[in-house]
């Protein structure tokens, strides 16, 4: 059996199946939806950070832009939700295209510029001068399209596509070439790889994923403010989840989300500062003691982790 088929059968299918049946068994649908959203975002970070090495510190920019893309279509054009979700993905890609020059920057410079870009988009959307289009800082209310269960299944479709995309990267020359670019772009170009094209492809793919996720999030919650959908926590959580599990693998980000977001919800929201403290310490411990993620515990022993 080819590896790709194994990965689909033993990782993708069970994951989607579990999240497809869980709403019938478990009451807290919002929590399930958040799990799916973070699974999508963590895999989106995996595509760009794990496979190309660019740390998208402002990843939430695509998510928020997607949410507002959805909102603008629904508010001003009365679009059906599915069309608006596709438009949200398109908005993510367009923002990604606009930001492609950032890929010329390396290391910390890229991360910081990306963070600044996401904050710029936030302040643009939240600007009272644009109230006519985005409702500025006053937030949007999209009661017309409100349908959480449809939104949930749409999120599962996007999750399927995203994890499917990562399975492809893990099993194709394309994914191998991306990793080659990450390791050494000069050597990669001497292996015949068009470095710029590869980076842009991965960048736009991860922007698309976050844009779609943002659109679906807007559909699901239907009432939100700029600060909600551009919250830096989306970027940080997605990055930390992906790193905690281990990037450039299919299973790492999934494990990361299931464990860390699970812990997050166990600790609860009652005292946010204690939560923040524990989380901060966890992040520091992760970087200092397990920089290659949980999967590295296995790979260090020579076990292969998909």
């Amino acid at each position: 059996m080819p590896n790709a088929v194994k990965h689909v059968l033993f990782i993708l299918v069970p994951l989607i199946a579990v999240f497809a049946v869980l709403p019938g068994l478990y009451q807290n649908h919002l929590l399930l939806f958040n799990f799916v959203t973070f699974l999508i975002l963590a895999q989106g970070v995996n595509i760009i950070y794990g496979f190309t090495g660019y740390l998208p510190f402002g990843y939430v920019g695509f998510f928020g832009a997607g949410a507002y893309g959805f909102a603008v279509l629904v508010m001003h054009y009365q679009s059906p939700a599915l069309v608006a979700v596709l438009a949200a993905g398109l908005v993510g890609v367009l923002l990604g295209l606009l930001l492609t020059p950032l890929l010329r920057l390396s290391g910390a410079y890229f991360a910081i510029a990306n963070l600044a870009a996401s904050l710029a988009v936030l302040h643009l959307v939240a600007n009272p001068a644009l109230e006519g289009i985005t409702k500025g800082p006053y937030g949007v209310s999209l009661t017309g399209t409100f349908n959480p269960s449809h939104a949930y299944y749409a999120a599962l479709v996007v999750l399927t596509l995203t994890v499917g995309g990562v399975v492809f990267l893990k099993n194709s020359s394309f994914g191998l070439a991306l990793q080659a670019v990450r390791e050494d772009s000069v050597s990669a170009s001497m292996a015949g790889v068009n470095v710029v094209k590869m980076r842009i492809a991965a960048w736009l793919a991860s922007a698309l994923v976050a844009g779609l996720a943002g659109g679906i999030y807007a559909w699901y919650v239907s009432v939100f403010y700029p600060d909600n959908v551009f919250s830096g926590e989306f970027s940080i959580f997605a990055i930390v989840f992906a790193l905690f599990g281990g990037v450039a693998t299919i299973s790492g980000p999934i494990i990361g989300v299931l464990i860390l977001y699970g812990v997050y919800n166990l600790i609860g929201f009652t005292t946010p500062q204690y939560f923040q403290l524990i989380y901060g310490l966890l992040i520091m411990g992760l970087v200092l003691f397990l920089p290659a993620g949980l999967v590295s515990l296995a790979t260090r022993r020579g076990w292969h982790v998909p």
Partner: protein
Amino acid sequence: MLTYALVAGVLFGLYFSLVGMGLNLVFGVMRIVNLAHGDVLMLGAFVALGVVALAGIDPLFAVPLAFMVFLLVGMLLYWVLVPRLQGSANPEMLSIILFFGLSQVVEAITTIFAGTSERSIQSRLLGTVFSTIKVQLFGGKPETGPIRILGQGFPAPWVIAAGTSLVAIGLVYVYLYRTRLGTLTRAVMSRRDEALASGIDVDRVSAAAFGIGLGLAAVAGVFAPFMFGSITPAFGADATVTSFAIVVLGSLGNPLGTALGGVVYGVCYMLVQTYLSSWADLLPYVLLILILLLRPSGLLGRRVRVA
């Protein structure tokens, strides 16, 4: 109005230079992105609040106190965190995440002890030491109120913060160019690997730079309640991004370039505030992106940082 905006821009700019200086020193020497930089500023502000609340004296006394405390904290933190980080596969990238975690810890602990309410210090308290000395020596009445520059009145704390920043920048210059440790620091900044190979105690140089970087941030923080009106534990994150804009503007890895970056940033900030106030929030981010794309090495930089 233009004169006012320009002078205020320079005053704020000098202060912004101090805000960014420590971040740049740390990045320049260690290639570490200290995302907790803004949180150290926030803690510096709390030192000033503490000095006023507990001792009731001029918050200027918080300047040496904040510097010394965070110099020590910085050196300690260096030894705990950095050598381990440098041993990893991609320290520059992981430092972003590590120090993000640290900033969360700092913010959480501060919130646990101080709550989330906004705190400020009466601006007339700052600089009372000067007017007291003046009254003692020359008699007369203690002056309060704005300081006049080019026919315009400016709040006294702005001028005092700008003056302190100028002194601090001067001291950083003296440290880097007139002391032995400073010379070694510059050697590490330009070529870390060669500095290691030539037997320089890179860890000691880096620990000092890290301590000084945090100390400078804390000193900048002492003035934060006056410059920004009030302070909350969540102030740190915004301050970090602003610091980055300033540092990148000047030139990443060149601490003295930060002085220029700060002034340019301050003047732009005041001009936008004056003429286009609803877009002022966008400024740091747009400026940061533009500078990174158009002149990635900063206004004074020579090294180009392109992937």
